C-alpha cells in the first residue's frame, strides 16, 4: 500500500497508522517520522514551494527503492506546502513492516532520499526578512550512505 499526498493542511498520524495496519494481519511494526518547523533561531514561518507532478513521481521512486531494499507492507508520505508557522508539522513518513528493523531502516532511508530528491523549496521568514533555505551538505552525505 502506497500513499503519497501533497497538501496544505495538517495530517492525522493516527489515521495514517490505522490505514497502514487495518487490512494487513502481518503488520507488526509502524515507524513514523514527522518533521516540524523549528523556531529556535527567530524563525516565524516557512513557505514551501514544490514542482507539481514531479514531486509525486519522485516520492514514488523513493518508495520504490525502499521496497526493493526492505520487505515493506506499506509506505505513506505526506508533505505539506504553503505557509507553515513555527512548530507546525511539515512532513510525515510512515512505514509498515512485519518486523521493526525494516520499518526503522526504510523510514530513515525515505527521509534521506526525500531531502535530496523531492522537488520542494523552503523560504524562511524571520519577522519579514525572507531567505531561501540553502541545501545542506550533511543531507547529501546522509543520502550517499545508502548507495
Amino acid at each position, binding site marked *: 500500500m502506497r500513499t503519497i499526498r501533497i497538501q496544505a493542511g495538517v495530517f492525522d498520524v493516527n489515521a495514517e497508522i490505522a490505514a497502514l495496519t487495518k487490512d494487513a494481519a502481518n503488520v507488526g511494526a509502524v515507524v513514523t517520522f514527522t518533521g516540524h518547523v523549528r523556531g529556535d533561531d527567530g524563525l516565524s514561518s516557512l513557505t514551501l*514551494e514544490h514542482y507539481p507532478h*514531479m514531486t509525486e513521481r519522485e516520492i514514488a521512486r523513493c518508495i520504490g527503492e525502499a521496497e526493493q531494499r526492505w520487505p515493506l507492507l506499506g509506505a505513506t508520505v505526506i508533505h505539506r506546502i504553503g505557509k507553515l508557522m513555527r512548530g507546525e508539522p511539515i512532513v510525515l513518513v510512515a512505514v509498515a513492516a512485519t518486523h521493526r528493523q525494516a520499518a526503522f531502516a526504510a523510514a530513515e532511508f525515505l527521509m534521506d532520499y526525500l*531531502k535530496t*530528491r523531492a522537488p520542494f*523549496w523552503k523560504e524562511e521568514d524571520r519577522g519579514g526578512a525572507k531567505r*531561501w*533555505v540553502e*541545501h545542506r551538505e550533511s543531507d547529501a552525505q546522509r543520502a550517499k550512505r545508502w548507495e
Partner: protein
Amino acid sequence: MTLLYFAWVRQKIGRSEETLALPEGVATVGELAAWLAKRGAGYADAFADPKRLRAAVNQDHVSFDAPVSANDEVAFFPPVTGG
C-alpha cells in the same frame, strides 16, 4: 518546449513558466542555461553560477550535459530543501 522555474530562480527571472522554440545550436541543458543567461538582467542573475542550479527534463532529475529537444519540459531550480 516548456520552461519552468522554481524558488529563487523563479523570483530572479520574474516568472514561473514560459514556452519557447528550441533555440538554434542548443542541444543540452547546459547550452539552454547559457542561452537563457543572455536574455536579460533577471535571467543573467538567475543563471550567473550554473553550479548553484539543478535541472529536470520531463520531470526527471538530470545533469547539465543531458540532451534537450523541442517538446521537452525543462525545469531549473536550486538544490531541493524539502522534508
